[in-house]
């Protein structure tokens, strides 16, 4: 078993840019955050994410759930700090995510996207070491600590044996785990995943979510997963943020969000919701006829 990865807080060499303004006891706090996409101010907006709020604690898995074009990815971009909210605030450990300098942001927030495009081939270990960029200085020659962290990260996602392979010569599921390992090598407080199960078969999906649950517990990450997978959300999330057409309809544990009428309305499909013996909701879709 590998050692936990997370360090307590960004070290003394990287002082926070300003004093915390939000509630520092909460890991992530989204407070009435909203966003509008508009080509220019005089035209009608193409998409609006209405103000929404929720909080997340260390070790928690939050699922941002909704059909296509519901605003999931916009919310993820706001939380990652890539976009600035039009109104409201998003705090990570009391600091607004958008105003953190890129380097400090990358020490605290790691984002796992669907696919990483490679221009020139690189080895798996080189790719994972990219996660150490925000922790290094100058030319960033690799330190012993970097190597330990990268090896642990690969071990934690069960990909230690891939270390010397080429990135373009491994399978989709293996690549997904390596991308996750790079995010772990960032030693973040907040782990964001954008549709992580999209190209994975069912076995790999369960593997990935099992690892996420274990990592959230071991390393005290707060994990946010954007997805439209109902059953994986029901099985793995501690909290669900349900979105539809830019509106947040419900926030809460899966058992309270997974109500038949509500889900049928959001996903426009007839379905049933039943509770499993573990107290987790399970959704079954059936034909419209």
């Amino acid at each position, binding site marked *: 078993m590998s050692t936990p990865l997370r360090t307590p807080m960004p070290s003394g060499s990287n002082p926070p840019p300003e004093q915390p303004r939000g509630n520092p006891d909460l890991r992530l706090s989204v407070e009435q955050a909203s966003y509008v996409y508009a080509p220019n101010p005089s035209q009608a907006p193409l998409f609006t994410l209405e103000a929404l709020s929720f909080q997340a604690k260390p070790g928690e898995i939050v699922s941002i759930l909704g059909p296509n074009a519901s605003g999931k990815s916009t919310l993820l971009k706001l939380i990652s700090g890539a976009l600035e909210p039009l109104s409201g605030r998003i705090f990570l450990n009391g600091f607004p995510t958008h105003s953190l300098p890129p380097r400090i942001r990358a020490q605290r927030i790691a984002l796992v996207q669907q696919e990483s495009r490679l221009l020139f081939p690189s080895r798996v270990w080189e790719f994972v070491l990219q996660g150490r960029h925000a922790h290094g200085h100058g030319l960033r020659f690799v330190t012993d600590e970097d190597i330990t962290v990268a090896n642990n990260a690969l071990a934690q996602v069960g990909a230690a044996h891939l270390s010397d392979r080429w990135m373009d010569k491994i399978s989709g599921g293996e690549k997904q785990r390596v991308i996750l390992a790079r995010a772990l090598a*960032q030693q973040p407080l907040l782990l964001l995943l954008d549709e992580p199960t999209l190209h994975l078969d069912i076995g790999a999906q369960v593997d990935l979510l099992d690892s996420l649950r274990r990592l959230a517990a071991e390393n005290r990450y707060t994990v946010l997963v954007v997805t439209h997978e109902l059953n994986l959300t029901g099985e793995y999330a501690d909290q669900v943020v349900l979105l539809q057409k830019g509106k947040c309809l419900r926030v809460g544990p899966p058992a309270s969000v997974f109500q038949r009428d509500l889900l049928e309305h959001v996903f426009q499909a007839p379905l049933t919701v039943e509770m499993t013996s573990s107290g987790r909701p399970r959704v079954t879709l059936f034909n419209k006829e």
Partner: protein
Amino acid sequence: MRPLTLSRLFLRCGVLALILFVVVVIALKLGAVQVSLYGLGRDLIRVLLHQSSGISTDYGMIVVDIRLPRILLAVVVGASLSVAGTSFQALLRNPLADPYVLGISSGAAVGAIISLMIENQLSFSPEFAGLITPFGAFLGAAITIAGVYFLGRREGQIDSTTLLLGGVITASFLSAIIMFLMSTLAGGNLRGATYWMMGSLSTLPAKSLLYLLGIGFLVAEGAIYTTASDLNLLLAGEKEAMHLGVDVRRVQIVVYLAASILTGLAVSVSGAIGYVGLLVPHAMRMIFGSDHRMLLPAAAFGGAIALVIADTIARTVVAPSELQVGAVTALVGAPFFIYLLRRRLS
């Protein structure tokens, strides 16, 4: 895991420096006038010891006053073009990017020609006038990159095929402007269209310009090198680099300005020599991998070696006449470009 260490970096650079030295010595020896290795070594040591007065032989003068400055010019121009190519490939995330192919060299040439014309019209002191040409070339290069960059964008993203097409068309358009300027406004010191479009190292620039070239090269290369580890991440895309902690905007501005300076300086002293910035970075990537901390210095040495060899070929194969060095690099570079393009498409 075998990450790059400082000692391995120095070792590899040392080997490349040694190869460059050997190539320079061979280039000094080759030419219309035969030079013995002994005489060459003796004269080089005298130059290094600032005892040039001791060199009296005719061939010594040829070596020290004619061949050596030309070879040193090839060293700096080759290194500049190669580092500029490596930078453009990272900045535009396109392995086929090259100052010549994208029309950036032609843009620098137009800038240089216009500055020469302005110099002719206004009466500056010679020292000041000498600095206007490289500045004009820098502006020409910087404006052209910005233009090609916007031509290459589709739906907010850089599209590599559109970018290459945009660059090729820009290059052809700017060549037409060079021809137009040359045939309508030809003055005494405009050097001729072939010089600007094919490049040549046969005219040694003024001393002030040579110093500027050397200092500009070191500053620009140094500035790009400070972003070497950021460039590694930028290859994966701007958004991804940002999420990994790269200050993307700062890196882009530094590399954009520094690569424009390198191209502008190189073109203002040697015209538009093509394909060095394409061929050399690719060869170095095959040998040393795509880590920019190693690739950038390797490209500098490799570019210097390649251009010294190309120029030696240019001035010896049809002796006593001379080929344009740009013709030599294009003879090798253009087929290589097609090879890379085919490999990418398959």
